[in-house]
Every structure is written in C-alpha cells, then in structure tokens.
C-alpha cells in the first residue's frame, strides 16, 4: 500500500498508544453528550407509546399523503449508512491509503445508522404489533409474504446490509482490540481478552484474515450499491409522478454516499478534537472526504437537473404537473432548501481553501445533512401531495409533534450507540493506520515492496 509521509514521531507505538488513550475514563463533556442522546431517545420512546395506544393519527398524515416524516427519516438514515461501507470496502478494493484513518468511524456510523433506519418501517406501519407478518416464517395459517412487494425487498436488503456491515466492523476490530487488550488493565482487559477471541497476529491468522477481509469487501461493495437501489425502488416501482423514474437507483446511491460522507465529517471533526487525533486524522483525510462529497454531490445535482428535464421532455402531463408543483407549489421552500444545500453549497468544495478548512467543512457537512433530509421529504411528501393523476385528491400536509418526537428519538438512539462505541472500542483502526506507516527497519536502503 502507498505509505504516506508523516512526522517522524508517528511510530507504531505512537499510533497504538494514542488510539488506546481514547478509551480512557470519559470526560464530563462526554457524559453530557451521552445524557442528551439518551434524553432524546426518551422523547422518541414516549411518542412511540402514544402512537401505539392511540394510532398513527397523532402524526400529521393527511389523505393522500400516507407516507411522510417517518419514511423520510428511514431513507435519510439508510442513506447515512452508506458511506461507511463505501469507505471501508470500495476504497479498500481501490487500495486508497487515506481511508485507514477514517473507516472505523464510518463503519460504526453505518451499523448504527442501519439500526436506526430499521426501526422506522416498524414504527410507521398501522398495526406495529403485527410487524412480524412481513417475515417469511411458517405459520398456522399457511400464509407467506408477497415477495413482489418492494417492501419485502427492503426487509431483505436492510437485513443483509445490517448483518454484513456489522460483521465487517467486528472483523476490522479484532486485531485492534487485541492491541488494546495487550495494553489495558482491569475489567477492560477482561472485556477485550474476550472480544479479541484470541488474536495474536500470528502469520496463520493474518493469512486467512487478510483473504477473508478481501472477500467480505468484495461482497460488501455490490451490497452497498444494491441496498439504496432497493430503497429507491420503493418509490421507482410505484407509479406516482416524481417517484416513477429510472434514474432513481443511481441517484439514490449517489445521494446516500453524499449524505454519508457529510455525516462522517460531522462526526469526525469533534472526535478528532476530543481525542487529540490530529496527527492520525489529518487535514488530508478531510480533504479527501470533501472531494468524495464534491463528486457525489455533483451526481446528485445532475440527477435533479435530469428529473426536471425528463419531466418536461417526456411530455407526460402528470409528470409536468408534479414537478411544477414541486418547484412552485406550496412546498417550494422544501424543494429550494434541498437544491441549495445539495446542489449549490458543495460547489464551494472546488476551492482548496474551503476543502482544507475543517470548520468550513464542518458547517458545510451540517447543511448537506439538512439538505439530504429535505431531499427525501420532497420526494415523498410533495410527490404524494401534488395531485398525482387524480386532480380531486390533494392534501395540505403538516407534520405534528408525533413526527418530530419520533425523529428526535431516532437521533438520540443513533448518537447513544455511537458515543458508547467510540469510548469502548478503538474509533480508529490501529493496525491499518500502521500499515500506511514506514515499518521499522535497520537498513533504510532496503525499500519496501
């Protein structure tokens, strides 16, 4: 792998100790954050109890807007989940060295984002207590689910994605846990001894490990692309104008990676500061993430243009009406928020000064997150509200406290897990960061392979 030039003092030992240090006893700030997350989660739980008792009517739904904030959040979180595996799997296959410092965080984010997203389909259905009817299990009635329904595809795609990305995360963790194990003391030692399942770094272990990791990456790559494609088909398979478009799969995948990278930046910035990882997660890493944002952002922007062009060029009156409604109807504000945040703001990233300015990146990444949330809101709510086909069926939809409550809960749930993770497991890969350092050698002349 390409070794990157870094300050002399960044040695194997430095890496191990710096990263291991992040697992020390947490600061008050950390507990504050964790507390906030748990509180948000509490809000969500209470809202959910209300929904279960009284019904979905508490949310803002209004005929014919039958999907709204919950599904928006679902797609939003699934999208977030995408950059993780991309960085760890695809970039791994591309052998790009810079990923090593950031992929662990991204992967953890992926797992927890999927965990969050997975809750929404269960919350948003009318009779939540029958969610298991969507699972093909042998039952007394002899009924099976309908595999023609994109929702079942979802279930399989998300399920697979969650399993695989979790395995991927654990795989990467094992050598690092071992490393931490060998430094730690007390209960942490026991914990890590258990979780490192006897890793020693012997040549046999490395031999199978590296191979297996390669194949996992090879499997994860098409999976990443498939998952958000399937999610996009929830919409593309329907005949609603504004949903029924062939461009949706690539458009959604790009959007997902875009939002994902945005979220990675949002998360890495504070972590880097808190854990003093400036030497390991350098500006260069951020710049690369920014470039990734720029690329995917442009694809998203292109998709927007495409949608409107086809709506006009396709000549279908319903399509035209739908997109006119989208841009200039009562929800114009949502549409334009999304376009500005997703299509125009990232253009700033062409400027190197911005790319290399952590604060600027942080701010931009926040807006990217907002923009991507609104993208889903526009696609789902606005397309349904805007008299699809049936001129008599239109709605004025407004979210209620129940919608926001559940959404807040989802953020709490996500951050709770994420915070717990970074404090208890190496948030940056120890072994892989070492891989991109020059190994200790006696004869400097002997260059590496």
């Amino acid at each position: 792998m390409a070794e990157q030039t870094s300050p002399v003092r960044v040695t194997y030992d430095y890496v191990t100790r710096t990263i291991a240090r992040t697992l020390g006893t947490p600061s008050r700030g950390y507990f504050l954050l964790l507390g906030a997350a748990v509180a948000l989660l509490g809000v969500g739980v209470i809202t959910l109890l209300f929904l279960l008792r009284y019904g979905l009517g508490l949310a803002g739904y209004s005929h014919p807007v039958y999907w709204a904030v919950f599904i928006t959040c679902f797609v939003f979180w699934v999208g977030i989940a995408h950059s993780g595996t991309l960085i760890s799997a695809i970039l791994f296959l591309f052998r790009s060295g810079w990923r090593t410092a950031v992929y662990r965080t991204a992967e953890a984010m992926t797992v927890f984002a999927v965990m969050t997203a997975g809750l929404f389909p269960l919350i948003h259905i009318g009779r939540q207590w029958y969610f298991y009817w969507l699972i093909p299990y042998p039952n007394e009635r002899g009924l099976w689910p309908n595999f023609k329904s994109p929702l079942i595809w979802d279930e399989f795609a998300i399920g697979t994605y969650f399993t695989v990305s979790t395995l991927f995360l654990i795989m990467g963790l094992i050598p690092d846990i071992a490393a931490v194990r060998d430094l730690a003391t007390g209960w942490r030692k026991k914990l890590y001894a258990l979780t490192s399942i006897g890793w020693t770094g012997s040549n046999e272990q490395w031999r199978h490990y590296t191979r297996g990791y390669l194949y996992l990456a090879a499997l994860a790559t098409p999976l990443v692309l498939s998952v958000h494609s399937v999610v996009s088909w929830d919409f593309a398979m329907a005949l609603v104008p504004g949903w029924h478009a062939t461009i949706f799969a690539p458009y959604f995948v790009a959007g997902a990676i875009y939002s994902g990278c945005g979220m990675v930046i949002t998360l890495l910035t504070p972590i880097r500061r808190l854990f003093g990882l400036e030497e390991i997660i350098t500006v260069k890493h951020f710049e690369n993430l920014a470039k990734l944002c720029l690329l995917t952002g442009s694809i998203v922007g292109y998709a927007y243009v495409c949608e409107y062009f086809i709506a006009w060029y396709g000549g279908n009156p319903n399509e035209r009406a739908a997109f006119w409604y989208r841009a200039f109807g009562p929800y114009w504000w949502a549409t334009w928020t999304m376009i500005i945040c997703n299509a125009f703001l990232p253009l700033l990233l062409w400027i190197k000064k911005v790319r290399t300015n952590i604060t600027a990146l942080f701010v931009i990444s926040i807006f990217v997150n907002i923009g991507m949330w609104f993208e889903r809101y526009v696609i789902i709510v606005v397309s349904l509200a805007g008299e699809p086909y049936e001129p008599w069926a239109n709605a004025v939809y407004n979210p209620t406290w129940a919608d926001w409550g559940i959404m807040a809960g989802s953020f709490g749930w996500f951050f709770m897990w994420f915070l717990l993770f970074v404090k208890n497991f190496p948030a940056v890969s120890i072994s892989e960061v070492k891989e991109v350092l020059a190994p200790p050698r006696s004869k400097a002349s002997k260059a590496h392979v």
Partner: protein
Amino acid sequence: MALTLPKPLIDLLNAPPTPGVLGVFSQLDGTTDAIKKLRAAGHTDFTVYSPIPRHEIEGALGQAVSPVRMFTLVGGIAGCSVGAWLTLWMSADWPIVVGGKPVGSIPPYVVIMFEMTILFGALSTILGILFNTLFAARRAGTILYDPRFTNDRFGIFVPAGADKVAKAESLLRDAGAEEVRRG
C-alpha cells in the same frame, strides 16, 4: 509468558504448551532475514507474529493462498438458491394473483436472490476465517506470545525440543532478535 486465552477457546483448544524458543524483533527486515534463515535451516512449522500484515513476511514465508475463498463461493451459491427457493416455492404454495402478474414472477425475485447471495456469502466467509484460524491454532498448540506483538514488535516462535533449542536461539540472535526466550 503464555497468553491467557478466553475461556471458550481454551475449552476448544486445550492443547499442551509447546516447547520452543521465541525471538522478539524490533525491525521488519530482521524478522524477514530470520524467517529466510529458519526455512533454510529446515524449520517449517514456526509461527511469525506481526502487529500488521506485511508482504515482506508473507513473501519470506511463501505461504499458499488461504482456502477462505472457497467458503465464500459455496456460501454465495447456496444463498442464491435459497433465495430462489424461498420466493418461488412460497408463491406457489398459496398462489395469489396481484396486479395481473404471474404467480411466480422472476424479475422481482432476483432482488431477493441477490441479497441472499450476499448474506450467505458473507456469513460463510466469516465461518471460513474462524474455522481456518482455529484449525491453525489447534495445530500450533499453546505457544509463547508477547503483548508487544500487537504494538510495534515482530516475533518468531520456533518449536524445538531440548536438543534443537540452542541452535534455534543462536539463529534468531544472529538475525537480530533483540530478545530471545525459551518456553
């Protein structure tokens, strides 16, 4: 000092401590030299510890490619067929027409098959890794280990009876081991 493995694995392995000598290296090239020397000296079943995988070491050891890939392949194929069975059999078991589509309609089912392929492929890959590494560990038995190996030191353990120990020791020292231990 011997590594204390977590309980379940001890039960799994509970192999007797293997007699031999452990060399601790601070330099990569020293390690590779030692490996070459050992192989020249006819040692085959020694174990190399390293904090990260290095091509130099792999090269020096000249190992065969891991069989894990077969697990992946088999798992993938199994997954795909399970997906096909799930969708086709279940729709045929209680045939219901929706939207004027055939009862067993392939295009939508491809998605399920694909996801199942990935799922089973990944799971069996993991199994493959576990199986192989455990198998290897089982063969090597319980051997000397040093916590620094996960940080910044390389190590080589040469299993050797009382007769060969001295020879192995010297060999490792010459290769530039900063520390050699018997066990």
